[in-house]
């Protein structure tokens, strides 16, 4: 178990965002966090990485309590890709090289540069390597931030809506890259997903949040029409088309 979350509680003032949330992820697993807007998905992801401090509960990363670890210690094991990312006057290569930051002592080594180079090739960003971020499209930028997280060589990868800015082709490419990296390098991936069908296609486990609480958690067996309908408040049918589960709202 690389990440074990138990009884997490989070509040903004008197407003409860998360209540008694618990789940666990193994190395190499892809977990999708699902639920309506405001269910607490992004907040949950941020508490996992200590960007927000939970009021109660424990988060064990490889057996260590995350809330007691320093930022650098967390960054060496866990990468986080925010939902909102900002462009600036950095080249794509430098932006991805930044993923090596937790590992860099004084200056990037040849091995760091080579690793970044390999990741740029894998994510199809090689031809943009020396372009400035503020000259890229939204989709290209999203690939850059994911590439940066991969360059961090984490054991746990946290993604907040990794495909929200991508077109169909790039959605598939990016998620495949993440899936492959997860299997090859044995990374646990935890992603907040909006697209149920993409989640069904790429993840091994699902966490359905509804109104601050876990509604259901588990493998494909929890993704029933009843569960999804109740968690989202919309009647749906779940069907199998070409050996692929698909959710269709009624």
């Amino acid at each position: 178990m690389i990440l074990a979350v138990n009884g997490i509680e989070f509040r903004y003032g008197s407003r409860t965002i998360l209540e008694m949330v618990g789940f666990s992820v193994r190395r190499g697993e892809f977990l999708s966090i699902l639920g309506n807007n405001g269910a607490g998905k992004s907040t949950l992801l941020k508490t996992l990485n200590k960007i927000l401090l939970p009021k109660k509960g424990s988060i064990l990363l490889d057996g260590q309590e995350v809330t007691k670890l320093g930022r650098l210690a967390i960054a060496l094991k866990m990468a986080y890709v925010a939902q909102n990312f900002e462009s600036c006057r950095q080249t794509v290569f430098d932006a991805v090289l930044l993923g090596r930051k937790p590992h860099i002592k004084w200056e990037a080594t040849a091995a760091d540069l080579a690793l970044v180079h390999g990741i740029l090739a894998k994510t199809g960003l090689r031809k943009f390597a020396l372009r400035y971020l503020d000259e890229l499209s939204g989709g290209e930028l999203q690939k850059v931030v994911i590439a940066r997280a991969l360059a961090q060589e984490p054991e746990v990868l946290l993604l907040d809506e990794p495909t929200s800015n991508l077109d169909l082709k790039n959605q598939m490419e990016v998620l495949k890259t993440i899936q492959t990296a997860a299997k090859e390098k044995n990374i646990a991936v935890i992603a907040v997903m909006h697209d149920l069908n993409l989640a069904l296609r790429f993840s091994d486990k699902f966490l359905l949040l509804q109104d601050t609480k876990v509604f259901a958690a588990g493998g494909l067996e929890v993704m029933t029409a009843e569960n999804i309908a109740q968690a989202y408040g919309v009647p749906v049918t779940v069907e199998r088309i070409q050996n692929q589960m698909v959710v269709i709202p009624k």
Partner: protein
Amino acid sequence: MSELVNGESVHKGELTHYLKYTWKKKLILGVLVILTGMLALYAISAGSAELSPWQVVLTLLGQTDGHAEIIIWSIRLPRVLASMVAGVGLAVAGAVMQTILRNPLASPSTLGIAQGAAFGAALAIIGWGAGSSSSTSGGELLINNPYIVTITAFVAAMLTTMIIIFLAQYKGVSPESMVLAGVALGSLFSASTMLLQYFTNDVNVAAVVFWTFGDIGRASWGELGIMTCIVLVALIFFLFNRWNYNALDSGAETAKGLGVNVEKTRQWGMFFASLITATVVSFLGIIAFIGLVAPHLVKRIIGGDNRFLIPASGVMGALLLLAADTLSRRIIAPIVLPVGAITSFLGAPLFLYLLIRGAKLR
């Protein structure tokens, strides 16, 4: 570059592009350093007693004595070095403030720190009589206790910074709004200075106004030493944090995810940037625009990577301030114009040009 690193094959050609690109930045940095050195040599040689650059080199190496030696060691060299050190300091402080506050407008003169220093000086000159001399023969004579003026200006400038850091830390003012807070504080201090001036005599008003004109000539070897130490310490601190600043450029949450202690990085960065500003302003007076223009100019040429941005901004700042000071000495010699006026005079059009070019590039 090795063919196999971490089990992944490396495409040699592609990686060399990046290395070439990095080399280009180092080359530009080198060219800037050489240009600054050449200008420094010219600045030392030019003046009412003309010396040849060769004479300057010989004197600096201790090969000559007499007339030239006195002029160079006691008048021109401290002035040239002071403008370079102040230029490095102001530009580097501006570059770091722009990054940590995530605001391209952040600079020593837009955060109210300079106005705070001016108020401190006015308080010392008017309130505590540090400048109420009856002499009218020359500007320098109007201030008869420069140490008190400098110390008060420094304290007031640091106080302004502390207020800004306090607002950000405990009252939840976002870094993006800190420039607005700085503008508000700046106008408060300007108004206070104005009130002080209103209720005093014309000699004191002249002394205050004269103080606010930035003037490199005020620096002697002692002041130069203090300024150099502070700029050097801050510069080393900034260079140690260059990766943290790069991470902050991608947003606070991303930086946290990359292991950066965002709050500490901001606080200490602000502290050192303000320390530089307060020191330079309290010794030399207000020198506007260097902290704003130098980093922007460098960003246009080599991009925002703080590994190069910080040192290159420093050199650019030295080059600009040295050029401005040399111009202020030479343009209607033997009269020396206030360098603060020259930097604003040249800085504003340069800045507008950058903005227009930036808009075209998009």
